[in-house]
Every structure is written in structure tokens, then in C-alpha cells.
């Protein structure tokens, strides 16, 4: 699956743009602030009905204008798909597939699979455990509707149990029986979620390690370590034992909502000991593993957006990434970079078809080879 054409009207800093892409590699070259990332965002928009930068749609309309239009022509499963997104200030956004408006935007998500790697994804490595749990949960949920249902039910039971703990404290009252019935539910759903997390991490790990080794030439040993008390304790026992503590804290201190996934380099967390380059490599490898999962699930090769990821990576790693994604296994790729020379060198060595676009403050032009 790939995007053939993209046209923009009043989208962010592009008053007008009309681009014809390569089905393989596409590079946006330009200075910081020229609008490279905005082009990536437009492509992202057509897959997810929203920006990956600002959650307020209106902010994507060009300053002093009152609407934007993003239009993309795709080649998907032997068919052409026309995807249109339009927004007028103060109105609801219109999203159309082949001129037919969607009733619900959620119906569109998944039609055009896409994976993006941006500098803000570094939160996955630098941020708290909830970022990593959400990453893992979102991968599994895309595969497994039952997992998502179980997760929703677990979180609901957790919410109710926490509420009850607060009430106990406020009312100076305690009923073991009332607490137990919520603990039982958490145990039931929590065990199912734990099993799936173990199973999927085992599947994800080798793919992830494979990509990391390819990019870094296998010099470093890396590992994702699932940290959960459920490995060597019975969840029901854990909840029971933590009652005195939970009553004091007025929330549930143990369970799969406390899991972490440690990203290790050797025996230590990469967050602490990794260089910028190692962390970026880690992130790219994770996202490429996710790419493989989505590819497998959807039966289509997702579009891959690599936004500004080459900064602070050494030349070797950059070349490895470009070589890797230019391989047949990947489909259409978009890359942004500030440095033309840098890019020319990389591209010389690959055989894939490519196009380069020069981006200057709101204009974009294809560079003839």
C-alpha cells in the first residue's frame, strides 16, 4: 500500500502543495521550521484522522485562512483510494473515502496502516512505565479484541476498588467482603492480561533484537524485561497481602497496572547508561518491530514515516537504517533530514527507487536527480 499523490490547501504553513511520491523512498530536505514535519503530519492525518503534533484540529489551518484540505490518492490492494480531509474553522471535520463521508472516524482507522517514528517517541524510553505499558497494550489490542475488553474491565474494577478504599478511609468503616469481590474481578482479568503480555513480549523480543542488531551491527546486547510480580506470586495472594498498605494509601498498590517493561542495554536500563544514538536506535528497532506486527495483522505493508530521527545518530547507524528500510520487506518510506549531502551519500548505496523534495518555508519542490 502506498500514497501516490498528496495535495494540500492551507494546511499549516503550506498554502498549496501538490506532490507525486515514489512508491519506495521519499525524502524531505529542508531547514528546521521549513515545514518538513508538517508534510509528514498531513500523511499521518490521512491515516489516523488527526495530527500527531497538535490535538486541536483548528490549529492546523493556515494562519489567517478559514479552512484546510488534505487530499491523498492511494494504491491499496490493487485499488485506488481517494481520501479527503477538510476542516472549516468552527465546523466539524469532514473525512471522505472515495467521495463518501464517514459516519464515524473510527471506521477509517486501520484502512491505511502507518507507523511513525518521531523525536517525541523518545518518551517511550525516557518516560514513566505507563508510556511503555500503553505501547505494549496498543500493539496487543490491535491484534486481540478480547485483550482490549479484558483491559477495559480490569481498569474498571481497579477504579471501583480504589473508590471503595477511599470510602473506607472517609467513613472509618471496613468490609473485607466488599473489597474482595473487586479483588476477585481484578484477579480474573489481570491473569488473562498477564498471560497475553508474556506471550506477545516473547514474540516481539526476537524481532526487536533482530532490528537492533542490524542497525548497530550486533555489538550491543539488548533486552526488554517485563517486570511484573505476577511471574512468581499468585495475584490473589498479592492483593490480599497488600490490603493493609492499600487501605493506608487509599489505592491498589499491586497488580498488572504496575507492570513495567525495562529497556535494557547489557544489564542496565538504557535510559540511564545509553548514549543518544543508542537510545534512538532502540526506539527505531522497537517501532520497526511494531511495523512487522501491523504488517502481519493487516496483510498490508504500512507506510513508514521517519521524522527527524537521524540527528545525533552516527553515520554508520544512519546508513544501516536507510539500507534496512529500503529493503523489499518495507514498502513506502518517508524521511526528513536537514542535510542534503548527508542524504545523497546514503542514497547512492541503495538500489530502491527514490524521490527527493526540497522544502523551503511553505513551498515544496521535487529535486530532479
Amino acid at each position, binding site marked *: 500500500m502506498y500514497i501516490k499523490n498528496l495535495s494540500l490547501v492551507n494546511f499549516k504553513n503550506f498554502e498549496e502543495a501538490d506532490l507525486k511520491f515514489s512508491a519506495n523512498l521519499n525524502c524531505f530536505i529542508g531547514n528546521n521550521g521549513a515545514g518538513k514535519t508538517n508534510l509528514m503530519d498531513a500523511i499521518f492525518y490521512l491515516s489516523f484522522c488527526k495530527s500527531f503534533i497538535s490535538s486541536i484540529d483548528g490549529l492546523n489551518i493556515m494562519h489567517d485562512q478559514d479552512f484546510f484540505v488534505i487530499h491523498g490518492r492511494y494504491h491499496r490492494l490493487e485499488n485506488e483510494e481517494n481520501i479527503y480531509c477538510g476542516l472549516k474553522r468552527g465546523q466539524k471535520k469532514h473525512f471522505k473515502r472515495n467521495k463518501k463521508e464517514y459516519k464515524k472516524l473510527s471506521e477509517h482507522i486501520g484502512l491505511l496502516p502507518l507507523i511513525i517514528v518521531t523525536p517525541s517517541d523518545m518518551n517511550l524510553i525516557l518516560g514513566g512505565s505507563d508510556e511503555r505499558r500503553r505501547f505494549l497494550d496498543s500493539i496487543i489490542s490491535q491484534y486481540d479484541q478480547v485483550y482490549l475488553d479484558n483491559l477495559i*474491565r480490569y481498569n474498571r474494577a481497579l477504579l471501583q*476498588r480504589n473508590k*471503595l478504599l477511599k470510602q473506607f478511609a472517609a467513613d472509618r468503616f471496613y468490609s473485607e467482603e466488599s473489597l474482595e469481590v473487586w479483588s476477585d474481578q481484578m484477579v480474573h482479568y489481570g491473569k488473562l492480561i498477564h498471560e497475553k503480555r508474556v506471550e506477545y513480549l516473547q514474540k516481539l523480543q526476537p524481532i526487536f533484537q533482530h532490528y537492533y542488531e542490524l542497525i548497530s551491527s550486533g555489538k550491543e546486547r539488548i533486552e526488554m524485561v517485563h517486570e511484573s510480580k505476577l511471574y512468581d506470586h499468585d495475584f490473589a495472594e498479592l492483593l490480599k497481602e497488600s490490603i493493609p498498605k492499600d487501605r493506608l494509601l487509599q489505592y491498589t498498590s499491586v497488580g498488572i497496572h504496575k507492570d513495567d517493561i525495562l529497556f535494557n542495554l547489557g544489564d542496565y536500563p538504557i535510559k540511564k547508561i545509553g548514549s543518544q544514538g543508542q537510545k534512538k536506535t532502540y526506539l527505531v528497532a522497537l517501532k520497526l518491530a511494531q511495523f512487522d506486527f501491523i504488517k502481519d495483522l493487516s496483510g498490508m505493508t504500512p507506510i513508514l514515516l521517519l521524522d527527524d530521527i537521524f540527528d545525533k545518530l552516527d553515520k554508520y547507524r544512519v546508513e544501516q537504517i536507510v539500507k534496512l528500510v529500503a529493503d523489499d520487506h518495507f514498502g513506502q518510506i518517508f524521511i526528513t533530514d536537514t542535510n542534503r549531502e548527508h542524504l545523497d551519500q546514503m542514497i547512492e548505496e541503495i538500489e530502491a527507487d527514490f524521490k527527493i523534495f526540497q522544502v523551503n518555508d511553505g513551498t515544496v519542490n521535487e529535486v530532479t536527480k
Partner: protein
Amino acid sequence: MITEKFPSRLLENAVNEFAKLPGIGRKTSLRLVLHLLKQEKSEVELFGNSLIQLRTEIKHCKVCYNISDSETCNICSNPNRNSEEVCIVENIKDVMAIENTQQFSGLYHVLGGIISPMDGVGPSDLEINSLIERVKSGEVKEVVLALSTTMEGDTTNFYIYKKLKDLNVKISTLARGVSIGDELEYADEITLGRSIKNRLDFESTLSQ
């Protein structure tokens, strides 16, 4: 809030009372009150009395705790109903929904809610102890759990199951054609009727 100047304190009182009802704003309230003022005195008396009667004379059936005109409701006092089967529901709306399917000939037990700490409802706020007593008294052979499939409905089912499992009673639950999170009263008649006829042993649903 709009502060209207009412020419009459009586009018203002009536408008205030109507506006306390769910979904009624002050504008609608005034419209309803003016409408009543145009009616015959006897009509309005009938209207007022029916409300007073409703509130003062309504009872809860002493067997099933459903809303009733008498000590024992129509369903519980009907000799043709099978008193060995008792269906556990949240409220009177669920009783009405199940009665509409005409697929259940047993009796009911109305809990008056479901367990939800977020709404301040615990087991002791519901008619659960009276249910246990009812089962212990011996006549009930089967309890059919028919609460919503929300987390709270499920949890209440489970709580009741744990309370009853050591007593000599069969515990079953609705076979569900309705998806997770749907409330019982929204299930369509045919689906609901079918699920109450094809009910499942509760314990067998626990491992799912």
C-alpha cells in the same frame, strides 16, 4: 440563572416544583404550570391526587421487593407462577422487560441497584440479605442472575453467587446475545426472551 418576576407566589412555587424534575428546565416548567391552570379544577385535582397517592400508598412487595399496590405483588401472588425459579434483577424496569418477553414464568427478586462504589452503592444497600433468607427458606430451587453485563452487574452477580453457592440451589445466568456493557433494559425482546430460555449454569461461565 434567569430570575423571572412572577406576579404570583403560588405560580412561582408550582414552577419551582416542576423544575426539580429531571429534564425539566424553568421554561418548560412554566409552560406546564400555565397549561394546568387552563384545565378544569377537577382534572388538576385528579392529577395532584394521583401523585400524592402514588407516593403515600405505594408499597414494596414483601416477597420480591418490586413496587406494588399491595403487600404482595401481582406476580408473587399469582398461583400459576413457578415459585421455585427466582430471577434476580436490578430494578422494576428489568422486571417489565422480562415480563414483556413472556418467556419466564417464575418469580423475581428486585435488588434495587447494583454494587458500585463510585455511586456509593455497597452490598448492604441492596436486597441481598433478603435474597439469601428467601433461598434459605427452602422453596427456591433455581436462581437466575439477570443483571447487566457491565463490570458492576458482573461483580454483583459474582457476589451473589459466592453468597449462595453453598446453599442447596441451582445458580444460572442469562445466555447473552447482547454485547459486553449493554444494559438489560436495552436488549431487544427476542434476544432477551431467548437468553432467559437458554440460560447457562453460572459456574460454567466463570472460566470464560
